[in-house]
């Protein structure tokens, strides 16, 4: 096995934002501000066939809340039939026993349920949805009863970065397969509320250091995602690369792409740089020829990155966060805590 940095002939995975609709209105949501004409059921089927043709290995269905569209089950089943791995990111509200059984019967590989805080009131307030914490916990239990692999998604923000220990305890109690701490993204409502909820670079450093320690001792598997800034905390710069990632820097546009509910193709879910549309354009042509993807794959250090010895490994961090806050893809990740002497 190796850790090469070559780009595959087609994306390995697709983040498919299946719908704009959501029954919640979270303060950090990257997609709540987006709107457009969603793909019809027939168009979704066409898109799925294109993904099968391109030999995509995995689709993660996100949103909005993907379970709001009943077509999810047909589309997931179709993809699965052709050997594509399937995962679902949900807030859990719509998962009752019947839905959990349906997800198990399709053999969905992983279901991720969002939990923002162990304090139900705090979680519900952040999601602007009363009762959402209890429904999420109930969903996790139902999914586990069906033998599904379940993850808890927790976006790190001002409301929870001091309670990671409690979140880990909750994950251990629920015996989930993984607790994945995600990085706050300044996108959509997350950008509007950035000053209120995003951490400072120093807070990011501190919380990641803490989580790396917890990773060693916790009973639950703690994931930190494909976070390029973690290279800054490795004892040797290549350590993270060898253990966690197939590629240097963020995987977006190098291993994966995003499809929006209207069929637009973007490098990732957190940025509105439209590369084309699944109904009009050829996915593989875009993958191989998009000037935006070329730029992402050949990032040039700017600002403090020009002096940073880690640039080779982190590639400037998350380009979406950089682009959304500065307008420049090559700008340093605003979460980066490294400073030149």
């Amino acid at each position, binding site marked *: 096995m*190796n850790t090469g940095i*070559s780009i*595959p002939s087609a994306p*390995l*995975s697709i983040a498919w934002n299946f719908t704009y609709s959501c029954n919640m209105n979270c303060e950090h949501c990257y997609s709540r501000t987006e709107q457009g004409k969603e793909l019809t059921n027939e168009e979704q089927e066409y898109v799925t066939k294109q993904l099968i043709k391109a030999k995509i*290995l*995995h689709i993660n269905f996100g949103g909005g809340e993907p379970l709001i569209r009943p077509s999810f089950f047909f589309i997931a089943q179709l993809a699965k039939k052709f050997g594509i*791995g399937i995962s679902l990111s949900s807030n859990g509200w719509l998962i009752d026993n019947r839905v959990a059984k349906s997800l198990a019967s399709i053999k969905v590989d*992983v279901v991720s349920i969002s939990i923002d805080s162990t304090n139900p009131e705090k979680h519900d307030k952040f999601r602007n949805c009363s009762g959402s914490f209890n429904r999420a916990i109930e969903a996790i239990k139902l999914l586990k009863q069906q033998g599904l692999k379940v993850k808890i998604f927790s976006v790190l923000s001002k409301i929870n970065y001091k309670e990671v220990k409690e979140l880990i305890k909750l994950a251990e109690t629920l015996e989930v397969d993984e607790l994945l701490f995600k990085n706050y993204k300044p996108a959509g409502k997350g950008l509007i509320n950035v000053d209120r909820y995003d951490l400072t670079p120093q807070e990011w450093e501190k919380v990641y250091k803490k989580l790396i320690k917890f990773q060693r001792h916790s009973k639950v598997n703690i994931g930190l995602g494909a976070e390029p800034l973690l290279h800054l905390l490795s004892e040797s710069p290549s350590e993270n690369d060898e253990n966690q990632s197939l590629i240097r820097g963020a995987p977006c546009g190098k291993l994966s792409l995003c499809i929006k509910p209207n069929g637009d193709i973007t490098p990732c879910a957190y940025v509105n740089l439209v590369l084309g549309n699944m109904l009009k354009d050829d996915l593989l042509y875009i993958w191989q020829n998009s000037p935006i993807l070329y730029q992402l794959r050949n990032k040039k250090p700017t600002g403090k990155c020009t002096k940073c010895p880690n640039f080779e490994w982190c590639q400037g961090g998350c380009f979406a966060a950089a682009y959304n806050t500065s307008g420049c893809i090559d700008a340093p990740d605003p979460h980066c805590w490294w400073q030149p002497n």
Partner: protein
Amino acid sequence: MENKLKRNPAVSWRLEKEKICQINKTKEEGMLKDLDEGVVFINLKNEMFELNLLGAEIWLLCNGERTKKDIIKVLFKKYKIPREELEHDVNDFLSKMKNLHLII
């Protein structure tokens, strides 16, 4: 009796044929720098793995019809490298792949 090795049916995977051609061309030109590039990508429950050329070759041989001994025999015939070295590499590779549940 030794187990026949097969790829976990729960994985989705892709062979990068074009990349193999490029690597072979590079090899012919006497440049070895691309030999470690990923030519097989494997997905298991949204975790991605990649295999280099030799790893890919073993992966393809794990088709449910061959034992470890059979695989070593095929590779020994093809590469003519010291048997001990080859056995060590194959053992190492297969044990990693089994630990990751990619091969069963």
